[in-house]
């Protein structure tokens, strides 16, 4: 999507952003974070998302390991997933957060297969979200600090 026209670029950024909401990847908490950005801290949201990704990588790794243990330590899994759910909630990562909740339900039911299946789905959602956000931030950086259209998701 190369363009020399700043207006086209701005429109693309706005569309990318809108689709994050429309497709349910992020919720209103993402807007709360955007509102904390200003000219002095134009990359705040991206910085928070970067921290989220670092933290998520750590949690995914340790949850993967814990799921492979015999017997599975559900208390540990619940704890890790609680952390994952918390941080995804803090950035407004809606689909990821939903998967976390589902996982915790299987955890409480001590259903290993359910946990594994849901965790696979969670990893896919997380990967998709990360990719979309990376692209969005790449484009957003190109247009520089710009007023975010006030968008309230349905």
């Amino acid at each position, binding site marked *: 999507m190369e363009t020399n026209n700043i207006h086209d670029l701005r429109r693309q950024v706005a569309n990318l952003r809108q689709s994050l909401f429309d497709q349910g990847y992020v919720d209103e908490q993402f807007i*709360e*974070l955007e509102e904390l950005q200003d000219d002095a*801290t134009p990359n*705040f949201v991206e910085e928070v998302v970067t921290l989220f990704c670092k933290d998520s990588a750590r949690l995914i790794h340790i949850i993967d390991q814990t799921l492979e243990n015999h017997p599975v330590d559900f208390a540990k899994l619940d704890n890790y997933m609680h*952390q994952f759910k918390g941080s995804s909630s803090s950035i407004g990562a809606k689909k990821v957060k939903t998967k976390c909740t589902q996982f915790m339900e299987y955890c409480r039911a001590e259903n290993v297969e359910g946990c594994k299946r849901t965790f696979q789905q969670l990893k896919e959602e997380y990967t998709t979200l990360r990719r979309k956000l990376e692209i969005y931030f790449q484009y957003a950086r190109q247009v520089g600090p710009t007023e975010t259209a006030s968008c309230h998701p349905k």
Partner: protein
Amino acid sequence: MGMAQELHVLAVDDSLVDRKVIERLLKISCCKVTAVESGRRALQYLGLDGEKSSMGIDGLKVNLILTDYSMPGMTGYELLKKIKESSALSKIPVVIMSSEKILPRIDRCLEEGAEEFLLKPVKLSDVKRLRDFILRGEGDDDKLTDKKIKEACSRKRKFQDDSLVTAHDIESSPESSASSESQQQKQSKIG
């Protein structure tokens, strides 16, 4: 005489992401922030065994402690207890944050002396209300006790009644009638 308008807040949260966000929320609300990752570090910062009262180890008076509930090692509740048991620190208002709206937990914290219980994710409006509330309290020491007791009582009642869905609480199914009223109550829970 007049209190400095800028509060110094000690934020305690084991989540890297949440620390960054709360730090930003507080800075935007014109608060000085010291963010630590655990209850132990918070107590270290406060010099619990020292003679200084409500001073951080760097000598900055702490006006408010904002702590997450669920933390490894020492929970926010345990931290709250330690602070309230300390003669040097007990006057510092403590606010608990949690992603879970568990009424017995909220009750326990309020009874142990927490000023307020905020649902995560914490919003800018929450922080601003909190700051204004603490500023009013800080500037008015004589009337502090009566006013705070009254407000704490009415907040407790609000929390006990407020078992209905709010914008934060996606998983619960809404109660039948007064959910919108409850949302308004929740939004004006301080002051």
